């Protein structure tokens, strides 16, 4: 009984400790750090506002060098190949990343990340396709694409996504700068996930586990009790 009591105490301690952090801290699949939200979902817990980012890309011999810009949270990165910009009259290109401080949700698309505005003080060259990578939270479904708009109120267009390189990141290429967010078409279920019961998979799994344990545990307990009693009865 003492052992069972200590085990129960450990279970309670675990539930309390796990309750204090965002869900999904299991082996290596959780995001490397909690997502910093502009508009946190209710289950997010403590939240830090997302940060902005800046990069200066050098221009050498009339061509912009390769470089990348990212926010300080590591939630969005844009990488430029050499000669990506029209550098007329420039000695460096300034690239800025700013999180939008509102969270518009356009019709037909459900964003699962903040919206970031990426600007540069020189236009992209035709054919230049910088790489955009966005990190997303495990609290939201996987996005089916990164979406791009000239204005945060839309219209938003999907610019697709490449094969997933790392869990909880989505990557694609873009031919223009503007507003970026990752999301999925809200008319269909979120992609890449196995969902049942209206997307409430985890609560259903836990409920099923509890039912199985209770239903199968009772007969097992009865059998064990009978097995223990039988030698005495024989005697």
């Amino acid at each position, binding site marked *: 009984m003492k*052992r*069972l009591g*200590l*085990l129960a105490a*450990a*279970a309670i*301690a*675990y*539930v*309390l*400790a*796990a*309750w*204090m*952090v965002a*869900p*999904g*801290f*299991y*082996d*290596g*699949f*959780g995001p*490397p*750090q*909690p997502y910093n939200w502009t508009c946190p979902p209710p*289950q997010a817990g403590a939240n830090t506002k997302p940060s902005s980012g800046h990069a200066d890309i050098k221009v050498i011999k009339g061509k912009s060098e390769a470089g990348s810009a990212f926010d300080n949270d590591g939630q969005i990165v844009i990488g430029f190949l050499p000669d990506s910009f029209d550098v007329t009259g420039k000695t460096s290109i300034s690239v800025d990343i700013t999180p939008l401080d509102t969270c518009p949700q356009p019709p037909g698309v459900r964003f699962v990340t903040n919206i970031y505005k990426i600007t540069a003080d020189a236009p992209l060259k035709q054919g230049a396709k910088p790489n955009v990578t966005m990190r997303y939270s*495990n*609290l939201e*479904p*996987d996005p089916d694409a990164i979406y791009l708009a000239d204005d945060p109120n839309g219209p938003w267009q999907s610019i697709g996504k490449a094969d997933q*390189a*790392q*869990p909880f990141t989505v990557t694609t290429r873009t031919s223009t700068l503007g507003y970026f967010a990752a999301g999925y078409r809200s008319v269909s279920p979120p992609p*890449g*996930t*196995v*969902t049942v019961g209206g*997307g*409430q*998979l*985890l*609560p259903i*799994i*836990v409920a099923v*586990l*509890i039912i*199985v*344990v209770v239903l*199968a*545990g009772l007969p*097992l307990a009865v059998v*064990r009790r009978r097995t223990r009693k039988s030698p005495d009865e024989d005697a």
Partner: protein
Amino acid sequence: MISALRANLVVRAVVIGMYILAVEWTRALAMRWPGTAAAALILGGAALTLVAVGWPAERIGIGTSRLGLRILGGLALGAVLLLPAAARSGGALLPGGLALAAIAVSIGEEVAFRGVLFAALEQLGGAPVAVVGSTLLWTVAHLLSHPPEFLGAVAAAGLLLAMWRWACKDLVGPIIGHVIADLAL
């Protein structure tokens, strides 16, 4: 004679702990390279399982006696491990490739931490040393893969699984519970 034997037990426990730590940290660092997550998890799980070579299955808590109870215990552990997340998010199952990796690393970690390391520490200093020692190393092993604010929950999960291992003398339950928790985000 006894002190020499005891010294050997210390050396053995330290070597096992260092090996496990090296594998876990290497895995965590390897996963930072794009596209290597699944491979790192599978190889890491396999490398952790190797630590059990030469250990009798019963010594590390694996057996077929009371198998029904062991499996039920694993399901119960899975339910407890997922409960805080289930109460707050809908969740999802991992896609195929990552699911296989999750199973590999879950089995590897249980065999290494609650199986071999627990057995070595228990032989060295009894159950308290085994529970506390395996939980401490489990937490340190996750320093590189988890942000600091998650480590309390990681430690509590390690303590729960170690307590099960001690209270029920069983590793099948922790393996099943760990696999369930890792498969369902």
